[in-house]
């Protein structure tokens, strides 16, 4: 902040001389400077009035501007305000864009909505027209055309509705921008093709210099409304095509192709090239469009979708057939396995390939389970559903199983069925044998019974038989003539003792006991006691040795009681098994 300059000092008057009359200098000042002082006072008054008017201007300005349109100088005011207001608006746009956007939002929104509504209305009208046309001969023709060309129906409709027309075709020397060849649609007025080609070249240079430096690209197309410019660039010349409507995509490819052909004929840059008529054929607007239409990939576009579809369908069909064949083969194997399964009578199988399988049939309760057969069938994720009824099978294996279930044979009994004949073999307790003999002929499927059974004692009976044998053994006395010399009939008694001992040994296992065999020697009352004891021991030894010789070892010789008779006998003592 700068400090205001100090006020200039007023010219000072010399100090009054005492001799000078009072007020003389004031009068002199009045005489010398009176007029200037009055002008100064007037100027100050005017400045004060102007400042007051300046202060009042903000209050008066709105009313003055409001009254301006009615005044005669309204035009002047508007012209005077145009420049500063425009500048102010420009400054506001640059410095406060958001403020302007917010202010214009209520205006722009309805405008945009209205524009979109108009566009949609036009689109709906076109769509209605297209839908209506789809049922007319022309619409059907377009549909066939779309089908043949392999493009959507809408694209064909648009192609016909927005029919493309080429107005101008320029072949432009790339370096100089000169027109090498130019053709225009016949109905168009003549124009300065050289100037247009030059400006187009300059625009291309401008675009490339502005935005295409890094990408290496240039102006390829430009559009204004329905007007469209395509530029196809070549090393020596560019081809520019001015069009209206929607050009077919094949057109650019056609232009590129023709430009490549043209480059084969072009002369040195800067020259005017050979006669254009020798190589410009086909560059006329009509020719280009015809060539672009002809370039539609009609054949392949028609066929390849169908070929792909057919291939896919064939592949799907083949896959389905293979799967079905595999399924049927597995079901057939399962049917064969079920047909030979004993005790099962298959009535039918219902299948849905790889989805469901139902087996119906009759099954005997003694048939082996089907789970193993089903597991071997390898049906994937399909769980077979079984619907069975009961029946009685006459199959030999099932009849045998039934006989085993009903007869419950003990160990040592074999049961078999052949041609309906039930064979029961082995040995069994007498009670079971008797019951089996009664029940076996009544078993379903048994035509005849062949019992080849040895009756077996049970434990109690065996024990009783043992006791009887022990008593019998005690009665069999081997007679002796003298001391340890057996009597003449001793051999017969010994043979009886051997038979008893063998039978007892056979029964001991059934009775579950252990036998202790002892040979007991006896003597009569004659002789001394010592000699008699010796004689009893000799006779007991003799019998033990005789039994050992007959195959019955382990007989313990013991001396018997004195004073009975001259003999030896076998004592069988029955003891519980250890």
């Amino acid at each position, binding site marked *: 902040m700068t400090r205001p300059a100090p006020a200039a000092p007023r010219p000072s008057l010399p100090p009054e001389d005492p001799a000078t009359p009072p007020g003389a200098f004031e009068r002199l000042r009045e005489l010398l400077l009176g007029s200037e002082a009055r002008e100064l006072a007037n100027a100050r008054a005017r400045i004060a009035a102007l400042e007051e008017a300046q202060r009042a201007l903000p209050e008066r300005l709105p009313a003055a501007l409001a009254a301006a349109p009615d005044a005669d100088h309204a035009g002047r005011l508007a012209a005077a305000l145009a420049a500063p207001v425009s500048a102010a608006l420009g400054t506001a746009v640059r410095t406060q864009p958001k403020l302007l956007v917010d202010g214009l939002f209520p205006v722009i929104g309805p405008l945009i909505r209205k524009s979109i509504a108009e566009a949609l209305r036009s689109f709906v009208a076109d769509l209605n027209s297209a839908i209506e046309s789809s049922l007319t001969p022309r619409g059907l023709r377009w549909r066939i055309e779309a089908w043949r060309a392999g493009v959507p129906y809408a694209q064909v409709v648009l192609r016909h509705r927005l029919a493309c027309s080429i107005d101008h075709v320029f072949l432009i*020397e790339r*370096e*100089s*921008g*000169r*027109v090498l060849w130019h053709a225009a649609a016949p109905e168009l007025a003549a*124009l*300065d093709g*050289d*100037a*247009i080609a*030059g*400006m187009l070249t*300059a*625009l291309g*240079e*401008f675009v*490339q*210099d502005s935005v295409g430096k890094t990408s290496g690209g240039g102006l390829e197309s430009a559009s204004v409304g329905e007007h469209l410019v395509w530029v196809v660039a070549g090393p020596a010349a560019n081809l520019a095509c001015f069009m209206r409507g929607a050009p077919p995509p094949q057109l650019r490819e056609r232009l590129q192709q023709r430009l490549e052909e043209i480059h084969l004929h072009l002369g040195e*840059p*800067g020259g*005017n090239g050979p006669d254009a008529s020798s190589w410009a054929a086909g560059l006329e607007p009509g020719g280009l469009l015809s060539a672009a239409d002809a370039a539609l990939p009609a054949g392949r576009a028609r066929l390849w979708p169908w070929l792909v579809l057919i291939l896919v369908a064939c592949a799907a069909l083949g896959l389905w057939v293979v799967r079905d064949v595999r399924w049927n083969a597995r079901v057939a194997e399962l049917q064969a396995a079920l047909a030979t399964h004993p005790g099962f009578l298959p009535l039918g199988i219902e299948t849905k390939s790889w989805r469901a399988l139902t087996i119906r049939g009759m099954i005997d309760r003694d048939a082996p389970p089907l789970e193993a057969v089903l597991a071997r069938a390898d049906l994937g994720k399909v769980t077979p559903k079984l619907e069975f009824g009961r029946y009685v099978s006459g199959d030999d294996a099932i009849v045998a199983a039934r006989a085993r279930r009903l007869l419950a044979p003990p160990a040592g009994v074999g049961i078999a069925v052949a041609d309906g004949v039930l064979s029961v073999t082995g040995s069994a307790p007498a009670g079971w044998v008797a019951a089996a003999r009664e029940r076996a002929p009544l078993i379903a499927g048994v035509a005849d019974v062949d019992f080849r059974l040895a009756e077996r004692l049970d434990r109690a009976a065996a024990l009783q038989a043992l006791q009887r044998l022990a008593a019998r053994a005690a009665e069999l006395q081997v007679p002796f003539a003298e001391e340890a010399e057996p009597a003449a009939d001793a051999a017969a008694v010994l043979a009886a003792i051997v038979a008893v001992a063998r039978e007892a040994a056979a029964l001991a296992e059934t009775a579950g006991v252990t036998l202790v065999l002892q040979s007991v020697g006896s003597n009569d009352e004659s002789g001394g006691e010592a000699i008699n004891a010796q004689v009893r021991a000799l006779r007991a030894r003799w019998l033990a040795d005789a039994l050992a010789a007959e195959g019955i070892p382990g007989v313990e010789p013991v001396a018997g009681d004195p004073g009975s008779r001259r003999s030896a006998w076998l004592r069988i003592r029955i003891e519980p098994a250890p």
Partner: protein
Amino acid sequence: MTAPSHKLCLLGDFGVGKTSLVARFVRSTFSERYLTTVGVKVDSKLVERGQLGPAKLVIWDIAGRDALDALGMNYLRGASALLLVADGTRESSLASALDLLMQSRSIVPRAVAAMAVNKLDLVDEWEVGPAVLMEIRRSLPVFETSALSGDGVEAAFADLAARLPA
């Protein structure tokens, strides 16, 4: 048989009257706004050359500048003729035109060239003296032109056209 076309570029400092010369010579197709946006405006005119036959001049009016940038260089490519324009009332514009000629030679070394010293209608205010013009005429043709009156305009373009190949 169509007339051969030749690219002719106008070069000169800002405000020397290039666009006015072109406007006097041809009936413009495009707006002068291109000069301030794209930096060039293109027109064409068919000129008669006597026995040489007609030729079409495609005239590139390149926006005024005292030095050529990359874009200006691109605009020059392929030019067959150069018309350098100077303002007779500004001697500095003559030096600029000669500088532009020197620069353009790297792009178009074989292009024919001529100098148009414009604003002949203000000849009293000319800073360019006859001695200077005489000196320049030793190197290239010089035409004193007035876009306002049209004096010398046709002659300048005709001279360039006459030196272009048939």
